[in-house]
């Protein structure tokens, strides 16, 4: 029972190798069977250890527990494990609905699941590094899989920038190892509780955080994300935006738990970084005309909102941010998968050229609208809940409140722009035979609505926090209406006119050298903030 985490890592890996080696005709069934097995194991494991997760710590190979490879789980990591298994179900069913899937593609797709589950469960810092780097490598291959020139460029941009970030993460691990003599997170947490707040401890913190910031796509170093998520296949985009980016967010709070007794005040710094990420992401998003680029830039802005939440030390706001990572995973996967269907049928990615989706494929459009309502924060949908929790948490500080409000208006603007695709006459024919696709979209839309209304049992069981505040009242509807109308006005009178600055913003592509330069500046800023002040 206690060794199930190892199986959770190796079952997808073994399945992927089987798929690659034997190239069976009916490998879809084997893949789905292994996925089912994985789900059952995760549920049994969760049920067995529910309430006593401190007993899940295992060290592999009988080595010294301070240096050996170790795995551990808590409710937070379990919730992320369920989220990733669910997302992989969706992506696999969606991919299979298009008929024959290539063996090599499936190999990387399922291998990535094992690696990602390892990242979530790993309890020593070096293994975190190994899994981070493995995710980077496999994701690079998946981005480049379309074999266009554009995807190759996006892939190498992603690979090099993230590798340099992860190497900075490794420097942090080195400093920790030579200061405390252990890399095991559980023991390190005990050691760090009594540790002095020295320069080396702070340096290790900021090196770890700088590495994580690149993986999470925070403000100055987010430039790899839109390109990479925009050019990949739709299923891969959904996976990357919905889940893999959250790997960085997950590490952010793992590392912050580690340092929570040292006394480093990171709240303001990461709130400002998060707000900047959100605003810059939204600014780029409203200027875009490519449907996948819009969604990719919104991933940047939503990660910014998540950072606004999880940078807080107040448990309510913090778990609001964590809840938003889940909500974002659901609605962003839904939007990307739906957009994938639309792009496949219309053979174009331009928002201006797609018209009449509502009359061509009503079912897909309904699910897309649910996704859009969720991301803009409509009452009764999940985006509303987590945004409200963060909003009520930070409303005492005026500039924080208005930063979040500006992001909401920007989000509304770009989705009003995107909603044009629904109107208009029917222009293409769409054969209604993709049942599996609709099931995928329906499950994701269902998850959006369920989390939007019955979030209390979820947060109680996984985060141990109950939000007793009633968020849905008449003010919330007025607030949403005002946001939407401001967004509409903003779209109607500024964005749709396509002024020169908007055009410049749309065509702006950051070169690789500049991105690295910004990364160095970011690192120097962190050194200045955390060590001198």
């Amino acid at each position, binding site marked *: 029972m206690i060794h199930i985490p190892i199986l959770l890592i190796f079952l997808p890996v073994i399945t992927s190798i089987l798929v690659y080696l034997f190239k069976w005709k009916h490998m879809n069934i084997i893949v789905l069977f292994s996925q089912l097995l994985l789900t059952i194991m995760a549920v049994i494991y969760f049920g067995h250890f529910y309430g006593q997760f401190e007993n899940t710590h295992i060290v592999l190979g009988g080595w010294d527990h301070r240096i050996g490879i170790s795995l551990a789980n808590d409710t937070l990591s379990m919730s992320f494990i369920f989220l990733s298994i669910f997302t992989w179900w969706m992506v696999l069913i969606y991919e299979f609905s298009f008929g024959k899937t290539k063996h090599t593609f499936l190999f990387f797709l399922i291998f990535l699941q094992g690696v990602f589950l390892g990242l979530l469960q790993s309890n020593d810092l070096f293994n975190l590094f190994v899994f981070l780097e493995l995710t980077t490598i496999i994701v*690079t291959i998946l981005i480049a899989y379309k074999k266009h020139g554009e995807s190759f460029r996006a892939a*190498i941009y992603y690979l090099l920038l993230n590798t340099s970030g992860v190497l900075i993460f490794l420097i942090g691990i080195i400093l920790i190892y030579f200061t405390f003599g252990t890399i095991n997170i559980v023991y390190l947490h005990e050691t760090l509780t009594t540790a002095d707040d020295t320069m080396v401890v702070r340096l290790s913190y900021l090196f770890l955080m700088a590495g994580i910031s690149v993986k999470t796509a925070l403000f100055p170093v987010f430039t790899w994300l839109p390109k990479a998520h925009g050019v990949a296949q739709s299923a891969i985009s959904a996976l990357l935006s919905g889940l893999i980016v959250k790997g960085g967010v997950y590490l952010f709070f793992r590392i912050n738990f580690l340092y929570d007794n040292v006394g480093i005040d990171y709240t303001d710094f990461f709130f400002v970084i998060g707000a900047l990420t959100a605003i810059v992401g939204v600014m780029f998003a409203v200027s875009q005309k490519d449907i996948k680029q819009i969604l990719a830039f919104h991933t940047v802005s939503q990660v910014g909102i998540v950072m606004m939440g999880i940078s807080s030390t107040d448990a309510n706001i913090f778990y609001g941010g964590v809840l938003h990572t889940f909500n974002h995973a659901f609605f962003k996967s839904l939007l990307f998968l739906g957009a994938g269907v639309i792009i496949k049928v219309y053979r174009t990615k331009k928002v201006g050229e797609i018209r009449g989706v509502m009359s061509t494929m009503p079912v897909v459009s309904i699910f897309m609208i649910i996704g859009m309502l969720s991301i803009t924060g409509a009452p009764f949908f999940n985006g509303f809940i987590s945004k409200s929790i963060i909003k009520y948490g930070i409303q005492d500080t005026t500039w924080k409140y208005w930063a979040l409000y500006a992001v909401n208006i920007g989000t509304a603007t770009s989705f009003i722009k995107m909603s044009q695709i629904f109107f208009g006459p029917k222009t293409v024919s769409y054969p209604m035979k993709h049942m599996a696709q609709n099931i995928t979209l329906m499950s994701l839309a269902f998850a959006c609505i369920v989390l939007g209304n019955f979030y209390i049992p979820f947060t109680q069981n996984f985060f141990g926090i109950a939000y007793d505040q009633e968020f849905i009242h008449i003010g919330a509807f007025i607030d949403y209406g005002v946001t939407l109308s401001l967004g509409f006005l903003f779209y109607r009178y500024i964005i749709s006119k396509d002024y020169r600055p908007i055009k410049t913003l749309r065509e702006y592509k950051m070169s690789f050298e500049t991105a690295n330069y910004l990364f160095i500046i970011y690192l120097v800023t962190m050194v200045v903030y955390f060590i001198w002040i």
Partner: protein
Amino acid sequence: MNPILTFVVILIGFYGLSTSDNIIKSVFCVTIIESGVILLFLNLGNFEGGGIPILNDQLVNIVDPLPQALMITTIVIGSTVTALSLMLCIKIFHHYGTVEWAEVLRREDVKS
């Protein structure tokens, strides 16, 4: 070798990353950063006159074996990254006929 010197190696790598506009040079720079990190780790784990950490009869005064074990893993990962990125360079060259970041970007705009 002084640990400070390894930081110089890492900084050289970052300097290269933020100035060179050739993709292959960028790949080299990432490799340089990685070598710097590996050197840093091995340096801090080493001391003058330390024996090799291999099980034999004179197991006294040896250096810490853990950094070496970890760095072998890092070297393996690093070689994978280098191989993959060089492969991507070849593919980019086939598609665009150049391996310069700015030129690739320009030709991408022309194509689309």
